């Protein structure tokens, strides 16, 4: 583990990067957790390979794109399943969680429109997607693909955000809700949740 010099660079909010941090905490891997204040970003932007964050620096190499970072950290920390099919299924489920989060109107400036779009999502397409994810969980068994992978962590990450928006959003998918709590209570993960910036 000490062969990897890891540095995660992001803004001071959780986002998808948090999936990587949860895995690193569980695996007990050390890394530098750098959070760039928003005001400092314009001067830093030209120094990043594709002018974006998050970025993972590993042994002198730079990887951007949160999905690529999550998938690489999953391999490093053993969260990528036992074979290529499990890995592909974990990938697919994680992408579904990303898709759900991408539907929110993050860049909408009109507050009223933002509220309307968000409410519509929380009552319509998001519960539909959650039902599909619950079917996948039922097929997977104890975890989405039979063992703990980044798919489970991605579900926890997205689920926590969704519950903040609407506290009963997981009530129609009780298995998914129970699963989220189960992942939160895994000792290596629970410890990180209790100390991380931004809280639980």
């Amino acid at each position: 583990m000490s062969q990897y010099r890891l540095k995660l660079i992001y803004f001071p909010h959780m986002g998808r990067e948090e999936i990587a941090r949860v895995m690193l905490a569980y695996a007990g891997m050390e890394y530098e957790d750098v959070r760039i204040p928003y005001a400092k970003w314009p001067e830093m932007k030209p120094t990043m390979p594709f002018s974006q964050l998050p970025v993972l620096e590993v042994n002198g190499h730079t990887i951007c794109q949160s999905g690529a970072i999550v998938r690489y950290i999953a391999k490093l920390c053993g969260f990528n399943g036992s074979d290529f099919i499990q890995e592909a299924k974990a990938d697919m489920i994680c992408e579904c969680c990303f898709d759900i989060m991408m539907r929110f109107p993050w860049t909408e400036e009109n507050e009223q429109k933002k509220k309307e779009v968000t409410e519509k999502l929380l009552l319509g397409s998001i519960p539909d997607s959650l039902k599909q994810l619950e079917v996948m969980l039922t097929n997977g068994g104890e975890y989405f693909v039979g063992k703990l992978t980044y798919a489970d962590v991605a579900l926890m990450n997205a689920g926590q955000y969704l519950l903040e928006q609407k506290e009963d959003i997981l009530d129609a998918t009780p298995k998914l809700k129970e699963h989220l709590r189960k992942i939160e209570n895994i000792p290596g993960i629970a410890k990180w949740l209790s100390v991380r910036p931004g809280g639980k």
Partner: protein
Amino acid sequence: MPTYKLCYFNIRGYAEMCRLLFAEAGVEYEDIRYTREEWPEHKPEMLFGQMPVLFVDGEQIAHSRAIVRYLAREFKLDGGNSLNAAKCDMWGEVLYEAFSKISFSEEDEAKKVQLMASVFKEHIHPKLYKYEKIIKENGGTYLLGEKISGIDIVMFSTLDVLNDYLPDGKILEQHPTLKILVEEVKKRPGIAKWLKERPAAEY
């Protein structure tokens, strides 16, 4: 070797990069193309009600980029180690992000042309210049250097789909290094054969 079946519409779209990976690897698969009329009856069969879906011995992998990553790993086109795989992954995501800013559904033709030009200027061309820099730094023809990987094929596929679809299909005129990459990908035996034989599709 597993039995593969790829399900999509009769277009290149998001499935073509998967088909090209099969072609490069010389691996057989069932290339299922549903018409718009046939789709509603098959939609419930798909895990997330969408395509493309890859069936691997009956197991479903949905989501086009998850499929691409799986096939690249299977066919040893992922750079050979986790770090190279992460780089290919990153380049694929950046490409997808840049091109997904194109709005194909804009109906006002004049506005569509204007939006397209703006997306190319602000998002796509700057990224393509960065890819060219990476290729040169890695001493290659290809993004990882001398050896082809799945991301080169994804790059080709993306540009191939767009070149026919956009009214002014000359994306690569400003990007000679990428032009060379595209030409080299097209010459690969499996890919050249596929390009000759593949069903004609609108985009």
